[in-house]
């Protein structure tokens, strides 16, 4: 891949690779923008820049991740995603074959999700100025009338649910990056959750809020929600779904799986009388088959997120500044 301005080489790359892969009517027009006819409802926009190392991992690559991540951000307010944009920043010298694989899986992810990439942009930076490939995606979507999902709506008594086992993505990335070679390879959970969300909201429109626990994991997301809503949250360690392999890897690495990133999971908070139905709908969907009720919202002016441990104690699930730092003196 050669670094260059807006010349013919770039046009050729765009034509041959991106246009072919993302082919759709809007893109085919060849304009610098896409015109989208929105259905009735309120418009939702979300943007996310994706940087991941390594670019390829079990369960996906940066391309599929860029599609799933942004679709999920759009979907978490209950919106149906309509279209995506994609901006690529490529490093000079990056192998074209690898780029092709990324773009193709991106296109597959988009079409599997039923969402088109309607416009895009590509820049190539000098060697050493990037890390292979960075992708920014922006998604737009529409929230049906009547749905009011927001992180500040959790109320004491509400139940907290998670759509499946936690920590898969972060552990998959880490074990690959550090070539730790666990017995059983761990696969990223990267997935688009909008259909699961649609099924959940169809059945239980009373859901208070949804959020995907990506960077910082379930811990960071629960702390965001408790802070936004001015409540406390108590979860039960024994209720947390977690794969044995992920648990084992976390134990070895000294990581708390609550702080490990997910890319295909959501946390839902709903009124207590709706949680049973919500759980049933989630479990009926392939992306929520291991969904679990993990805790509840309580009144707490401190906004503590607490976990009842398997040993019968209670410990805080702190909102940490960054990585998990040693603190035992």
């Amino acid at each position, binding site marked *: 891949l050669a670094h260059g301005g807006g010349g013919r080489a770039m046009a050729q790359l765009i034509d041959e690779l991106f246009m072919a892969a993302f082919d759709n009517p809007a893109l085919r027009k060849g304009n610098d923008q896409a015109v989208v006819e929105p259905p009735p409802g309120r418009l939702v926009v979300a943007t996310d820049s994706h940087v991941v190392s390594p670019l390829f991992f079990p369960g996906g690559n940066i391309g599929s991740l860029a599609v799933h991540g942004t679709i999920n951000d759009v979907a978490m307010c209950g919106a149906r995603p309509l279209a995506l944009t994609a901006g690529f920043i490529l490093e000079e010298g990056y192998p074209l074959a690898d780029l092709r694989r990324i773009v193709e899986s991106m296109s597959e992810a988009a079409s599997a999700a039923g969402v088109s990439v309607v416009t895009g942009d590509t820049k190539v930076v000098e060697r050493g100025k990037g890390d292979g490939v960075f992708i920014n995606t922006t998604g737009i979507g529409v929230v049906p009338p009547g749905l009011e999902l927001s992180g500040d709506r959790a109320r004491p008594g509400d139940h907290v649910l998670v759509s499946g086992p936690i920590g898969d993505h972060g552990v998959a990335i*880490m074990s690959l*990056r*550090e*070539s*730790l*070679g*666990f017995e059983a390879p761990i696969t990223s959970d990267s997935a688009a959750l909008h259909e699961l969300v649609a099924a959940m909201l169809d059945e239980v429109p009373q859901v208070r809020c949804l959020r995907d626990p990506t960077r910082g994991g379930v811990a960071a997301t629960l702390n965001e929600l408790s802070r936004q809503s001015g409540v*406390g949250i108590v979860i039960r360690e024994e209720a947390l779904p977690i794969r044995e392999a992920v648990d084992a890897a976390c*134990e*070895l*690495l*000294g*990581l708390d799986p609550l702080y490990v990133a997910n890319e295909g999971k959501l946390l839902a908070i709903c009124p207590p009388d709706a949680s049973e139905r919500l759980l049933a709908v989630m479990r009926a969907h392939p992306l929520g088959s291991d969904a679990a009720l993990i805790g509840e919202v309580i009144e*707490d002016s*401190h906004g*503590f997120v*607490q976990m009842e441990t398997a*040993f*019968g*104690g*209670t*410990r*805080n699930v*702190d909102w*940490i*500044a*960054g990585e*998990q*730092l*040693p*603190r*035992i*003196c």
Partner: protein
Amino acid sequence: MNAVSRHSVPKRLAVRVCGRVQGVGFRPFVKCLADSCNVSGWVRNDAGGVSLEVQGGGSQLARFMVALREQAPPLARIEAVVENPCPLQPRERGFRIRPSSGGAVATEITPDAAVCDACLEELFDPADRRYRYPFINCTHCGPRYTLTSGLPYDRVRTSMAKFPQCPRCLAEYEDAGDRRYHAQPNACPECGPSLQLLDGDGHPLPVGDVLAATVDRLTSGQILAIKGLGGFHLLCDAGNPEAVARLRTRKRRSEKPFAVMVPGIEAAERLVRLAPGERHLLAGVDRPILLAGKRPTVDRQLPGVAPGMPWLGVMLPYTPLHYLLFHEAAGRPMGLAWLSGTGQPVWVCTSANPGGEPLVTDNQDAVRRLSGLADALLVHDRDILVRCDDSVVRQAEGRAVYLRRGRGVTPSPIRLPRGGPPVLATGGHLKNTVCLTRGDQAYISQHVGDLDNAATCRALDDTVAHLQRVLAVRPDCVACDRHPDFYSSALAARLAAEWAIPLVRVQHHHAHLAAVQAEHGLEGPMLGAALDGVGFGDNGEPWGGELLALDGRGGFRRLGFLRPLPLPGGDRAAREPWRMAAAALHELGWGERIPAWFPEHPRAQGLAGMLATGTRCPRTSSLGRLFDAAAGLLKVKAVSRFEGQAAMLLEGLAAEHGAVPAWEGGWTLDQEGLDFRPLLAELTRSSERGFGAALFHATLAAGLADWLCRAAEKAGQKRVAIAGGCCANQVMMRDLCMRLEHAGLSVYQARQAPPNDAGLSLGQAWVALQTVR
């Protein structure tokens, strides 16, 4: 009245006494003393302490002044006595207690004190009206801090407010000549609190005699929750292995040693070896848990109480209730002689704080949180207003070292080298305490605990508020640790913002050392060695074996550190010494030997991989982790069941083995610091654990001494402060201090404030005080 002797011209003195002189029976003492010395005058409380005027012949006055200092009541602590001549009052007759002078009287709250001998005499005297009354007390003993909600210290602001005194009690309370003059918790069976025995669900048990029923249950192996001064204890028969095992299961405390309570020093000596100073500590009015050298028979006598530990925590009774339980078990003997007997039971006495949460203090809370733990609860209706864990003390080089400050000690201040604006310091994360300064007095709070749960974090908030209330101080500055994720730091930041006052973030090991500077009044530049677990370093790395140049103005420079070891898995490595041993092998270049070295650990292969790639392996200069590495290499302990267990077991082995010469080839010194890799390599070849442990301790002490001596010489310093969690290791510290002192250095260690993280708040406060000026 005054018989003025011909040989001594009458004089009059105005005297001010500062320190803990209020609420401890000081004025009646002064009156008594004045009468016996045949001097006239008056005494009263005022904002600064006690002021008095005395008039009499020169020799009487001299005798009075000497006795004033030397015979003060047991709970008084005189800090200063200032006397000035003043004009004679020729017509004055007798000595009077005057009402307190107007204005703000800062009647201080004193720490709780163990029941005194005079009260004990009454307690066991069938003819006394308070015979077997569990709430007997007087001006010289009993609860104070734990039942007081605010200032000034007066019955209405204590949990005794709901018990109006009967005429007989009131008469004692108002009689300046009585031992119970102004004893705020004064009570008797007529008017005071009473006991109740509850079943595990909180229902009152219909028993004829509560004390007898309680002792019966203890004797039959039951676990009882018993309300003490600052919280509930769980008690069981320490000689009953089943009961102890049941307590361990219920408390989910598999190996951590329990403390025991025995009725007297003689009984204690059957369990531990006591030096004279230790006897004194054990029987002090603060009645701490004393950690003392365990006799070898104890593991057989009291199986499962403190397995494998070189120490046993022993405590004497401190409330009348504790005494009455032993009294009951002894068959209700008369007098005090029976307390020196040795046939009494030994009871495990552990704080009732389920799940690492704060101590239970409230009756209903006790029923809710202790059901399932206790078979029955012995409660009473005198509320505990301030939670206070037992204090823990040990003796090192003939001096007391407080490892935990709590009941009996809080709120005694530590005097700072100088005063300044009030500072609030919020301490660390584990073993948290806070510190509030007022003038040149630093008040360290009682033990708050580990801030890893919401209840303890809330207890920290309460402690901060309560300390401000009882000291009537509003801070001008807040100090905290530099770790980004501590609740204590978040609280400090919040309070600083709320009160719009500066926030000073103090490096962990700097704070450890500053605490030593503070309590020893050390000003000016000096050296400091932090021998610690892990604390957040200024470069973002976990520090813990640090040589700092302290500038005496609240700053420091890092002169050197122990050569860092990887910490595979972060805090997990602090709980699993085998990981540190693997880290040591990796650092020795023997990474490939890790899986074979730990055949019993299925994760050894994975750990070798982590070490090879450096994944989740921050590097730490911690000395505590070096101990863990040694314990892991010598296969002393693979996984610690409680904090510091591996190092304690290692110390126990070294002590048992006896001293060996240090191996001079065990360390190297370079620009950066001290590298013990040769010693670690030697341990891998050591086939005998006891010898290995002894060699490790001796070589460590020699290496550290070498390092510190050279640094001291280079810096032209003679003074070294040493602090940090590893100072609890007596085998190493004794050796190290001897070497340093032999080399002409003055060594300063934590004594009043704990050397561990419980002392951080004092250090933070002192650093802040030094920097805010």
